[in-house]
């Protein structure tokens, strides 16, 4: 792959309700921050990818309402309806096409403006599943149970993920839910849909973020702190929940394998210094770590319990606090990329992990991680 780099990043603060900011306000704030970070003007942006979802926004072709806020007038602009990692993937492809030297990718979400269960219910098939009332939490509970039963992963091990990630968020100024928790507190939080309890769930959030990608030669002219895309891949699996073994992470395996091969990574646990993954629910962190090949199948719970995934451990996972500490849907995956880029640059502030040379960002799309997108980022071209 030709060299492509992240040259600018911007994130808004994530909050339960950003009532004073409409979608365009959030998008402008994030896009402006990314341009300032890169030291670029909007004229230097060759094309724009927006990331949004019409159901969440409550309007059709939701991307069209934010064109002024992302500076896309007189530019080629396209939209991805899916997680930000997938939006960034499309932005990257546009640079690789040779037609554009830079891409601004922005994502926005306001969970506060609609009703999350009703929107996530609408992702399910209207003939066979939707009218059963299934939503993101109840379907994830089915996946959590399948995973725990298959491998003996425990609710306590999942609770440790909540304690770790909310604790990490204490050092991240954009996080929505920095919390000092104990395993007992997580375990005694009420069941929503068992085995998932309240403190196993990500919150409902508002926020936006933006990333500027640039081709190799443009990147070097724009900034000295470019973060390079070493490998990237996405892969999808079955839509209907019963078609896959929910404990199986085949699509993630495939995506990771391709991304590692591009990046020349043979031993992910040794070659990768930091991971930011999509932990919408606590069980997802150990499950995705298995899918990413950081441990054997079924060992994700033990990996968490070993302390290796803590910020001071061998493989820090979600040092930012992850999605559990703030989950503006769609934005959340782009934030994983941004957090990795900041870590590689050494700009992560209080939650900086020392010596991060190679980082992995991960996003999901569809019910129970139907599709996965994996990014490997590094400081060297």
């Amino acid at each position, binding site marked *: 792959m030709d060299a492509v780099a992240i040259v600018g990043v911007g994130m808004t603060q994530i909050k339960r309700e950003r*009532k004073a900011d409409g979608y365009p306000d959030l998008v402008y704030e994030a896009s402006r921050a990314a341009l300032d970070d890169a030291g670029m003007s909007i004229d230097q942006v060759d094309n724009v990818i927006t990331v949004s979802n019409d159901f969440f926004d409550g309007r059709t072709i939701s991307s069209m309402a934010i064109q002024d806020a992302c500076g896309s007038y007189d530019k080629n602009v396209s939209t991805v309806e899916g997680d930000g990692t997938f939006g960034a993937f499309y932005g990257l492809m546009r640079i690789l096409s040779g037609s554009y030297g830079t891409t601004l990718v922005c994502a926005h979400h306001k969970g506060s403006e609609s009703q999350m269960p*009703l929107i996530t219910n609408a992702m399910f098939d209207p*003939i*066979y599943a939707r*009218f*059963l009332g*299934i939503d993101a939490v109840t*379907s994830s509970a089915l996946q959590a149970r399948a995973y725990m039963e298959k491998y003996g992963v425990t609710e306590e091990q999942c609770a440790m993920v909540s304690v770790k990630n909310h604790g990490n968020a204490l050092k991240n100024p954009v996080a929505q839910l920095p919390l000092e928790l104990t395993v007992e507190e997580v375990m005694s939080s009420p069941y929503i849909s068992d085995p998932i309890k309240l403190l196993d769930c990500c919150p409902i959030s508002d926020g936006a973020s933006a990333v500027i990608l640039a081709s190799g030669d443009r990147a070097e002219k724009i900034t000295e702190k470019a973060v390079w895309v070493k490998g990237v891949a996405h892969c999808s699996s079955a839509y209907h929940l019963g*078609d896959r073994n929910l404990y199986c992470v085949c699509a993630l395996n495939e995506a990771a394998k391709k991304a590692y091969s591009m990046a020349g990574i043979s031993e992910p646990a040794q070659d990768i210094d930091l991971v930011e993954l999509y932990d919408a629910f606590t069980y997802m962190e150990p499950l995705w770590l298995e899918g990413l090949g950081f441990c054997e199948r079924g060992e994700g719970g033990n990996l968490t319990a070993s302390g290796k995934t803590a910020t001071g451990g061998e493989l820090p996972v979600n040092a930012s606090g992850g999605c559990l500490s703030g989950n503006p849907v769609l934005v959340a995956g782009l934030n994983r990329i941004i957090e990795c880029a900041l870590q590689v640059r050494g700009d992560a502030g209080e939650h900086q992990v020392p010596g991060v040379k190679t980082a992995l960002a991960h996003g999901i799309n569809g019910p129970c991680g139907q599709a996965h997108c994996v990014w490997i980022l590094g400081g060297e071209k």
Partner: protein
Amino acid sequence: MDDWREKQELLVMDGRIKVPYRWFAGEVGTRYLESLRDQGVFLGTRCPQCGIVYHIPRRNCPDCFEECSEWVELGREGTLESYTVVRKHHPQLSVLPLPYGYGIIKLDGADTGFLHLIGEFDEEDLAVGARVEAVFSDAREGNILDVKYFRPTGGVE
């Protein structure tokens, strides 16, 4: 833009989007739902190449990409591959009184699981591998809720 917003009561426009849709079940879905409504029989389709029996039925095998032209009658009983008991849910999504369950159920004769409701259960009867049976609605209309829910039979696979 700051300061003045702190003291200001921010304005909110309330709205509600209500748009009628007509989702066609298609040929395969129609045959499946008609069979449930009229005979109380679950149908699957078999891939001619790999032999997998899909339930819910599929027109084509997603793996082999061949047309699944053979219909197969399945049992009314099956095995729980996963389940959850819902304690808290959006009132518009709660189709049964709380607490109720969702399960991934592999019907006898099928190779894939499918999602449905779990009702009429003692919690100790729910387990991965527990046997469940379909309870049909009295008035059946040709949709997935013609099966009211599945309930445990007390058996374990």
